[in-house]
């Protein structure tokens, strides 16, 4: 297959430069780049070549794939699928079984060292990974095989990034994030349950137009999307600063669109771009539709107590535990008092004894 530049390919598809510039403008906004970068992105994209992407899955629910492909309806966003060659995706591809397996190996061999490895789902590492296997091999084995020759790894969704819901207590499969297993490859974490599709697009566009992964934070998340908390970007933030809080989902505060902090919103401790990029093509996001953030893009979000407990609180002991602690305190205190009584009566006896012997000797 002759390697054509994307610009030429796009021209064949009757995609004008104006369309490309429009896409680039949207991408620049999404990547939090200065709007003037749009032209550069468009130019670079036009010169780029199609990128091979291999997508494998761990313990997942296909929600991540759902959300990514939802954005691939006939919209401008779908342009991204013109830029990449999704060489293996078990759910989307027509082939199955050994044929699919063969496709995978061939794609990996053909693009050795250059393909991007995308993974959704967590890895089961307990008991040799027997809880999630494909073609008789554990996800862990498959990952290890294909990670080695990948240019970079994209951990898509909270499960791939941190272990996610499969890792929730008691974590029966020993689920773990990609990072816990693969240490020697550039990894981009795109957490979220599901992740925002535009983030994946943005990462790919960045990779295609600038030839490198975007800037990452210490948790290997793209800074452009995860650099701030949802709280900091939230349009309801002014109400937080004014101390105006909805107290229930149906009170006047809720109707007025006040801050949902007290209803358990995890926005202040969740770093993601929901409040700015929003969902379904910028339609809305949970807080805009009146529900607090669940914090789904953060590690172990499932095990951080009720979604409806205010961040201010925490997991204090229940009344039963308090009763037990009181009982223990009572026992210790009573023991201390008894000890004091005992030593006292011993003292009293010795004083009494002293007095008797003394009066005995004196008389």
């Amino acid at each position, binding site marked *: 297959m002759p390697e054509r530049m994307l610009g030429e390919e796009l021209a064949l598809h009757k995609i004008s430069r104006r369309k490309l510039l429009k896409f680039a403008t949207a991408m620049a906004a999404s990547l939090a780049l200065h709007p003037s970068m749009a032209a550069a992105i468009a130019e670079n994209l036009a010169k780029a070549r199609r990128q091979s992407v291999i997508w494998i899955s761990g313990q997942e629910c296909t929600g991540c794939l759902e959300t990514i492909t939802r954005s691939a309806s006939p919209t401008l966003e779908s342009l991204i699928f013109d830029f990449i060659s999704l060489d293996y995706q078990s759910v989307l591809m027509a082939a199955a079984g050994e044929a699919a397996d063969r496709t995978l190996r061939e794609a990996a061999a053909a693009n050795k060292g250059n393909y991007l490895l995308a993974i959704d789902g967590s890895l089961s590492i307990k008991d040799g990974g027997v809880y999630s296997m494909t073609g008789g091999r554990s996800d862990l084995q498959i990952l290890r095989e294909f990670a080695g020759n990948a240019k970079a790894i994209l951990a898509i969704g909270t499960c791939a990034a941190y272990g996610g819901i499969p890792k929730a207590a008691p974590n029966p499969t020993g689920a773990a994030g990609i990072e816990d297993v693969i240490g020697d490859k550039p990894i981009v974490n795109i957490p979220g349950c599901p992740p925002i599709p535009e983030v994946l697009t943005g990462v790919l566009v960045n990779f295609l137009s600038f030839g490198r992964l975007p800037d990452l934070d210490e948790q290997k998340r793209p800074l452009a999307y995860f650099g701030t908390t949802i709280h900091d970007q939230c349009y309801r933030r002014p109400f937080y600063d004014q101390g105006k809080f909805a107290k229930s989902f149906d009170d006047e505060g809720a109707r007025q669109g006040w801050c949902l902090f007290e209803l358990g919103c995890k926005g202040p401790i969740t770093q993601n771009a929901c409040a700015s990029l929003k969902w379904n093509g910028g339609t809305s996001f949970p807080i805009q539709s009146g529900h607090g953030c669940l914090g789904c893009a953060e590690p172990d979000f499932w095990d951080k107590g009720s979604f409806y407990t205010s961040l201010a609180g925490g997991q204090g002991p229940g009344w039963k535990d308090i009763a037990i602690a009181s009982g223990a305190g009572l026992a*210790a*205190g009573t023991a*201390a008092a008894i000890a004091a009584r005992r030593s*006292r009566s011993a003292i009293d006896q010795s004083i009494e004894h002293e*007095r008797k012997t003394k009066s005995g000797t004196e008389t």
Partner: protein
Amino acid sequence: MSAPDATPKRASHRLAETAHQNDSARVKAGMRAFISDFGPTAAIFMEACVHCGQCAEACQFYVETGDPRYTPIHKIEPFKQAYEREAGPFALLFRALGLAPRVTLEELNQWQDLLYDSCNMCGRCSLICPMGIDIADLVEKARHGMFEAGLVPPDYLGAIAEKERSTGSPFEITQEHFRQTLLEIGKKYGVEMHVDEEKADVVPTVSSIDIKMFPASMAAMARVLNHIGVSWSFRTDGFDADNVSLVAGDRKGQRAVTEAIVAAAIHCKAKTLIMPECGHSYTEMRWEAANSVGKRLPFRVLHISEYLAECISDGSLKVNRVSQSCTFNDPCQISRRSGASAAPRAVLSALGADLREMPDGGDMNWCCGGGGGVALIGRAQALRDKAFQIKMRQVEATGADTVYVSCSGCRQTLEHGGKKFQWNKTVGSLLELVSDNLATIERVLP
């Protein structure tokens, strides 16, 4: 300082005994004496302090000297440490983690002047404490410990406490001596004296200070009781209520004094026991005696001022009116500590005296400076004089020429202080004032 006969011939009982004990035995004895009468109340007081330092502002020794060592709660510090280590709820932790080191005899010795010389046990600090700690009560308990450790200031407090324990009277006044004294007083002052009658409704007691310094007060007691017309009698088997042992911290001596008086009163089937013009003896007999002897007392305990007020109120005591301006110095133990501050005022009111209250008077009165046995500690003289300045300012502020007192301790301190600072105020006894102004009444004989 008078009490000439009180020159110690030998060290007090406990001091002599401790001379042969090693330090740790003395400390141990002290600590056990301190904690051995600890109940929930005292323990709460030990636990509640927040070190806010406000008690210092209530203490005349701090107020007049500005020396932070005189902060009341600081005075029991070594005992607090001992409590945390030995008897507190976290005693085990304190010992296991070494948080409260063992108190040494040297430390206790350093605290001697704080617990004795600079504390009148006046209880003002107990009223200022925002946590409601009765610091005066804790000082009393701490003195028990100090006594057992042999650390009572020997000169003179320890010495006379020892005499009180061995003879029942701090000045070694024997029963016979007392009997003779009473009869002489009766003769000298021309008053009918009742001594050792087999049965008496009212039994008065005396303070040994009265015997030594104010014999007229005993005559006054007899005259007033005769006037009221009750059946009464002094008892030589239980007369000296002074209880120096209490302020020294000698619980055995304290109990011996109390037991003798209770037994004497019971013996003559008394209905009322009258405490003399004296402070600590009243709190002892009124609030502690029943607990010391282990049963409710079958008679009432009244301070003489209370008895006078009662008899004036029921009409059995009639007095002439005096037109005199005066002020009244509330004895801490009677007023603040025992709630009897209304009685002397009722008496003065019946006498028609122009009573000018002192600033900070009544329940908030400053101690004369001699209370809590401080008057019996020779070396505390200078400190006592400083504290006395408050008293002089208080009295000056009233403009009255005469200070009436209802406590021989106050009376003696005021007289000495007045003499020393060439003060132009007269100090008088409330009882003697009443005795001097009895109305001549015609009793209708049956």
